[in-house]
């Protein structure tokens, strides 16, 4: 695998009984790239992501993530990636500090590192006054920004974000994307799913999954040109509608 390829997926397939959720998808993601992984509900995105982060075994095909094969080295994959989703990001009944200590420990950081990271993180997010509050008491937007930073505690080369901004207010949603941009700028690879099509425009490249297969993969600009439309929303509607 070339040094600058962070994800290499070849013919990745997952079947459940006689249902094929992911049908032999192939793609690469480069270092420092913001890669948008789009698709309708039920298109197979979540199944594909579960394989990429090492918690579900592919039925066929290969995926190499951060240099490790998800089939044979799934534990190493997990240690070398960051992950957050809308549904699970942090423990609501722990404080901010406790969450950082907990995840720092899971990721194998030393006490000294955790202490230093905690200070740095709450300072960057201006959460100094809230550090000993339960996470459940935070507004969703703060929580998601914090969750992103926690997912980056161990400085992974790649982070998976599964609908990180669902329901978040428009200003915080944009601040969240500024954090993504800043991380990508320093070489971190971002793999992100979203239902907000304006966010798809912020990605370097976007893939669109329909019915278990990747139907389109290009830069947002390229996709708009191919489909002869003005926005990613229209690209999405066109692709998913054509299939029906």
């Amino acid at each position, binding site marked *: 695998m070339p040094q600058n390829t962070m994800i290499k997926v070849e013919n990745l397939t997952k079947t459940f009984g006689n249902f094929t959720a992911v049908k032999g998808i192939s793609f690469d993601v480069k270092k420092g790239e913001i890669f948008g992984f789009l*698709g*309708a*509900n*039920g*298109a197979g995105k979540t199944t594909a992501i579960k394989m990429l982060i090492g918690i579900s075994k592919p039925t066929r095909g290969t995926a190499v993530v951060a240099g490790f094969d998800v089939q044979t080295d799934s534990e190493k994959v997990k240690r070398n990636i960051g992950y957050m989703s*809308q549904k699970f990001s942090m423990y609501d009944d722990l404080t901010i500090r406790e969450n950082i200590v907990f995840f720092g420990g899971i990721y194998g950081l030393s006490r000294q590192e955790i202490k230093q990271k905690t200070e740095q993180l709450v300072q960057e997010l201006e959460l100094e006054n809230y550090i000993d509050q339960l996470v459940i008491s935070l*507004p*969703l*937007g703060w929580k998601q920004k914090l969750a992103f930073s926690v997912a980056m505690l161990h400085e992974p080369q790649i982070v998976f974000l599964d*609908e990180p901004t*669902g*329901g*978040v*207010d*428009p*200003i*915080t949603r*944009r601040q969240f*994307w*500024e954090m993504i*941009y800043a991380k990508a*700028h320093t070489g971190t690879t971002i793999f992100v799913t979203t*239902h*907000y*099509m*304006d966010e798809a*425009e*912020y990605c370097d490249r976007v893939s669109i999954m329909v019915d278990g297969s990747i139907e389109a993969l290009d830069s*947002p*600009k390229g996709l708009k040109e191919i489909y002869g439309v003005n*926005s*990613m*929303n229209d690209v*999405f*509607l066109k692709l*998913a*509608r054509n299939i029906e």
Partner: protein
Amino acid sequence: MGILVENISKKYQNTTAIQDISFEVNKGELFGLIGPDGAGKTTIFRIVTTLLIPNSGKVTVAGLDVVQQYKQIRNIVGYMPGKFSLYQDLTVEENLQFFATIFGTTISENYHLIKDIYTQIEPYKARRAGALSGGMKQKLALCCALIHKPKVLFLDEPTTGVDPVSRKEFWEMLKRLKQFGITILVSTPYMDEASLCDRIALIQKGKILKIDTPQRLIQNFSKIIWNIKSSNKYLLLEDLKAFEHKHSVFAFGDSMHFIAKTDLVSKKEIENYLKTKNHSDIEVNKIEPTIEDIFMDLS
């Protein structure tokens, strides 16, 4: 008569969920509560559906008081909560049958109301509701909320987490329901759905920022919005933030929306500034605001 909400407030222990909220929904109107998570939308829904009593204020639904006449209200409204709340271990058909029965009606009696929607899920009518995909669950929930021919329909974030195609289909269904004269109160965090409502209330942190038709909100917005593009989006955002004339700048898809401190700033000035910052492929154009622009400017 639709829905009348007068000065309601609700506190949970130390947190004020909503404060002094008032709005009116006319009979047959499609009214949207537009705001992010935590704005207080669900608290309002619980109060108007008689599930929660406000600390102060008064609400009537179809002329009935939500505190005194809650039983009557429950018979004449349909409610689709934000969380999927049908019986997961009943089939599609059983769920619908169940809701029809408890409201003392039958599926066939009001079938015309749900026909358009139900035919889309009918192929799966023997499937357990828990095994449906997100889009299909949402369609079934809407059918169950409609089967007793409610006068007022409450939809709390029906499209959250739903992909753009299913969202579009859902709104088309709502538009068709309007022909039956059903009053609809719907909430959403997606600002682009606002323009599909007759009138909207923009809501944040428990307070209403504005109520109007989407068209009038757009017409009455007094600031100029500049749509700006260049070849490097990240640096464009950073440079516009540092621009001395900046009032606000936000990323919008493939461009930036920029509002200057004063309307006197010209296109030329913005272009020249970006040229000094070595941007190429610069495009600067005045555009009509979106509801999202207005929401961000108010919040």
